[in-house]
């Protein structure tokens, strides 16, 4: 046994005197992997709030806390107005990043994954901007609609006005060729109108049904707590030629997407499925039912999204000059890059020489040797 000082390993929770050799042991690596994956899961949960800030209710504040295993501190949210704001600020702080770096140095984790355990200052600045916008929106909403907590009383007091709009809007409903359902509150004091009656009375039935009965219904609505929910507002359907609706089995609009997709649409909601690692994805794929609703669509779309992401990175690469790295056209085996270049150039010059077209030979008519000799003899004789 080596005679070294005893140290305490936080990951393995044991004291050892093996020095640096401990962090290379398989048991330490296994524990480190599980420790880091747990922390990563926690931080990924927080990334939801980083992309979409949420107001934290005062009642939920004591329930929210985060244990930072790198710094060994608990971060509470007792004084924060937005969900996980203290935690996000902690993850972006220099002290946390230093602690992560120290942890990495002590425990020998993969250096490429270190950036996943912190938040950059740009991300935090973006989140703070979003929080400011959200708080501005909430104050304007509260000014225009009163206190948010007082919704039930506001609802009961405005039931009468809601019903006025309901009756008016229903009467305004236009006649179209599609089967258009109208909605009517189904309280017992109402006359029961079924489909046959609607057919019998024709399209003007809404005028006769809705208008006179609402005065009697309003008091009933306010009487019980359940019926507070019934003050629904009717709206007018957009006019114009329609391609059918959900009742007539028309093709859904989301599948008729035009090719030009706006960039803003891409940031509508953070997509959690796209950020999963491959191993996690494989595990999930095994656990999912292959006969679930839209399974084929999901697989196809996931592959498309993967390709889109890859294409995005490819496009980024294309923006860089193609000659940023000289291509020596071969697989590097050994030696320096200079040697590889020389080898490649020698090979290329050889291949260029061999591929050069031969000198064009002039094709001459065949003259036999005897004939040629005869001709020369004759010429000498004539001289």
């Amino acid at each position, binding site marked *: 046994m080596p005679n070294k000082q005893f140290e305490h390993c936080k990951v393995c929770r044991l004291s050892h005197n093996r020095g640096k050799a401990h962090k290379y042991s398989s048991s330490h690596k296994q524990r480190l992997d599980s420790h880091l994956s747990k922390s990563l899961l926690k931080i990924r949960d927080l990334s939801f709030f980083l992309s979409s800030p949420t107001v934290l209710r005062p009642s939920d504040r004591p329930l929210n806390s985060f244990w930072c295993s790198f710094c060994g501190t608990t971060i509470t949210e007792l004084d924060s107005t937005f969900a996980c704001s203290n935690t996000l600020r902690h993850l972006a702080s220099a002290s946390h990043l230093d602690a992560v770096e120290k942890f990495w140095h002590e425990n020998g984790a993969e250096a490429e994954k270190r950036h996943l355990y912190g938040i950059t200052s740009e991300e935090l600045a973006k989140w703070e901007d979003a929080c400011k916008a959200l708080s501005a*929106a909430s104050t304007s909403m509260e000014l225009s609609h009163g206190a948010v907590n007082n919704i039930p009383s506001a609802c009961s007091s405005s039931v009468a006005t809601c019903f006025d709009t309901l009756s008016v809007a229903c009467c305004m409903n236009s006649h179209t060729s599609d089967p258009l359902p109208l909605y009517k*509150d189904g309280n017992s004091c109402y006359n029961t109108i079924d489909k046959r009656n609607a057919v019998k009375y024709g399209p003007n039935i809404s005028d006769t049904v809705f208008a006179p009965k609402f005065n009697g219904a309003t008091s009933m609505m306010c009487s019980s707590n359940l019926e507070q929910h019934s003050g629904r507002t009717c709206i007018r359907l957009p006019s114009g030629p329609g391609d059918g609706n959900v009742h007539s089995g028309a093709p859904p609009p989301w599948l008729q997407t035009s090719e030009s997709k706006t960039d803003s649409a891409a940031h509508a909601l953070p997509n959690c499925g796209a950020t999963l690692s491959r191993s996690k994805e494989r595990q999930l794929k095994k656990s999912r039912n292959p006969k679930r609703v839209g399974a084929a669509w999901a697989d196809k779309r996931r592959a498309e999204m993967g390709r889109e992401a890859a294409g995005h990175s490819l496009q980024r690469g294309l923006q860089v000059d193609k000659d940023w790295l000289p291509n020596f056209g071969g697989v590097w085996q050994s030696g320096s890059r200079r040697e590889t270049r020389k080898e490649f150039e020698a090979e290329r010059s050889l291949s260029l020489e061999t591929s050069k077209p031969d000198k064009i030979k002039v094709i001459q008519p065949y003259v036999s040797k005897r004939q040629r000799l005869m001709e020369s003899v004759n010429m000498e004789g004539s001289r």
Partner: protein
Amino acid sequence: MSYLLPNLSSKEEVDKLICDTLDKVLVLRFGRASDTVCMLLDDILAKSAREVSKFASIAVADVDAEAIQVYVKYFDITVIPATIFFFNAQHMKMDSGSPDHTKWIGAFHTKQDFIDVLETIFRGAMKGKMIVSSPIPPERVPKFQLLYKGI
């Protein structure tokens, strides 16, 4: 409370969200932020958004937005709030004893009712069912009647 949830104001945003929400239930609330019943529903949606975030995404769409009218017309939304459920770009239907199975009209009575509905839809969708039965007792389902025009 709609400011607590992602707001969709264009068709592209809605398309993208429906197509890119994979293996999760997507809840789309069509309504107005100023409407009282919408405010009740939004409160319930916002409160449960985090709790159901592992198997559901929630977003709201304003029925007054010009670009959303395609969806308003397709889903035949004549009463607000109307809540529509999707799973893997498929429209999920629910039989709650009301005449319209394509959408939920009105607010939910409690937060737990909404979570129960979501769980039922998710379980049904994972078993390949396009329509599920509502877990909510009939007395807590908002009542309305359907009148067909032009038939």
